């Protein structure tokens, strides 16, 4: 009896630890986003180099958190909400870890820009994209911690705003190139960097979808899957 109790306590402790790991990973990503933007706008190669060590930290946390999840699945065979939580955690680990990689990619891109002097409009848009990507990442974490399905579903609206900013940014990169303020190589690098910010938003939206699944067991993909299943059955009939 006391033995089962002990294992249950250990189980819940592991769940708490994984949650703590996720919070820290997300914290490292948000901090990474502001640092990398500061490095990008300040042409600070030294600061950009420091960012990869933050990414190593995220990788370590993700490996540890995943191991804990596997241990819980293997030893406890959890069901219902516990199982859903662990499955959500596993998916979130990879989403947040990927966002960390994107931050590191932006840092690498800074070196390839070769100290270009960006015009204020481009700088302003980069700043706005960074702010929006940071907001999405931290709101996604809030929705997970508060089990807030409403906030989680609102993330896609926030992401629409980031997509708009991204489109504006690409247009401005083109016009800067046409005005010969930047070289073609620099324009391509900037477009790639803009895309990285935009992708961070997509990962936050994925986290939001996982949180919705955690809270009410529904995924946006379910609707599409239902349609496909219906089509498949119809195909069988005809």
């Amino acid at each position, binding site marked *: 009896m006391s033995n089962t109790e002990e294992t249950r306590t250990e189980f819940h402790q592991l769940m708490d630890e994984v949650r*703590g790991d996720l*919070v*820290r990973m*997300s*914290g*490292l990503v*948000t*901090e990474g986003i*502001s*640092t990398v*933007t*500061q490095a990008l*706008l*300040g042409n600070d190669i030294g600061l950009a180099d420091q960012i990869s060590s933050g990414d190593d930290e995220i990788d370590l946390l993700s490996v540890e958190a995943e191991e804990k999840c596997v241990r819980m699945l293997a030893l406890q065979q959890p069901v219902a909400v516990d199982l859903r939580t662990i499955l959500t955690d596993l998916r979130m680990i990879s989403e947040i870890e990927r966002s960390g990689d994107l931050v590191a990619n932006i840092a690498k891109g800074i070196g390839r820009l070769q100290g270009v002097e960006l*015009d*204020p*409009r*481009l*700088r*302003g*848009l980069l*700043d*706005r994209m960074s702010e929006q990507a940071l907001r999405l990442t*931290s709101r996604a*974490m*809030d929705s997970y*911690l508060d089990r807030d399905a409403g906030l989680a579903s609102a993330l896609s609206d926030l992401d629409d705003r980031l997509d708009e900013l991204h489109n504006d940014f690409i247009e401005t990169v083109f016009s800067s190139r046409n005005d010969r303020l930047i070289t073609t190589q620099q324009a391509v690098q900037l477009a790639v960097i803009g895309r990285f910010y935009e992708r961070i938003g997509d990962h936050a939206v994925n986290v939001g979808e996982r949180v919705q699944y955690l809270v009410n067991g529904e995924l946006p993909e379910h609707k599409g899957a239902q349609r496909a299943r219906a089509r498949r059955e119809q195909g069988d009939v005809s």
Partner: protein
Amino acid sequence: MTLALAILLLLLTISFVIAFSRRSKAQRELTAQLDYLNGAFESLTNDATLAVLGSERLRLALDQLRAGVVIVDLAGQETIRNQVAKRYTDARHADSLVEGALTEALEVTSRGNPVDQTVNFSGPPSRMIQVRGRPLLHENQQIGSVAIVDDQTESVRLDRVRRDFVANLSHELRTPIGAIALLCDTLAEEEDPTVSKRLIDRISSETTRVGEIINDLLELSRVELDGEPRTDKVDPRSVISAAIDEYHPAADARNIEILWDFPAQSVQLKGDAGQLVRAVGNLVDNAIKYSEPGSSITVSAVIRSDSVDLSVRDSGMGIPRGEFDRIFERFYRVDKARSRETGGTGLGLSIVRHIAVNHRAEILVESREGEGSVFTLRMPKESTQ
């Protein structure tokens, strides 16, 4: 028979007395022991109460610290966490990294090694947090560990401001004076009147520059010393028109239009009219300097529920986000090369900030690079009528 009865009675009485006295002796002993135990118990309870009070006093005292303190025993179990450190438990986002650093510091310290670590946050606002871990030793035996979290952002900032001020002041004063000395040397040996004329013009412009810096420094120290400003009744509309009038020629020279926006209802502020005109004027002056020719700037007064906002909006180059908290420092310039061209002394915003402090007003900056800036002087309503 009677005698026998009497003896029996006597014997009985004696045995009673003996038995009774024995019992009462045992009882007395017992009572004494009980008293002793009771006393011991009471003193123990007192000691325990004192100990509880002692640790409670310690806990309350630690809550008064500005730094966060976490104390753990040898098993790593937390025994004390003060108010500031509690902020980091269950912290989210960037703050969760402080809790991570804390846990790590205590882990390392539990093996007997001290730890010093600094966690930097890019912000905004940027922050610098020091985490220290120290083993707690009692007669050379480790009995636990303590971790201390110290937000050093403000002290580091003040140090930097002080250092930069001295360096910048000597630079700003030395550059024109050095130029004047060189120009004078050249002038002394110059015979060509046209060259002499050019040299004299340069000397005159450098002298004007030193004069402006000294005037602004004097103005700044006057504003600082004044503290409490006069509490005249001031109409924000007259403040704005006076400020605009002063800078109209400068705006015209750069082909910049100044628009204004007043509230329909009249409102009065309490304060020093001269200082307020100077503050709004400085903001207008900056807006003109950092706007593209052909653009416009807007000066407005907006009445809010608890304040009156005096704002200056431009659509100029904007200010990088990381510089927001530095632009009010004396002589601080975002772009050193460009600012000298525009000819400011680097003291304008410092003066504005001091005037704001004197009027218990807040100064707000909104800015985006490539889009423009808005500076707002938020005058509290309690100083209005």
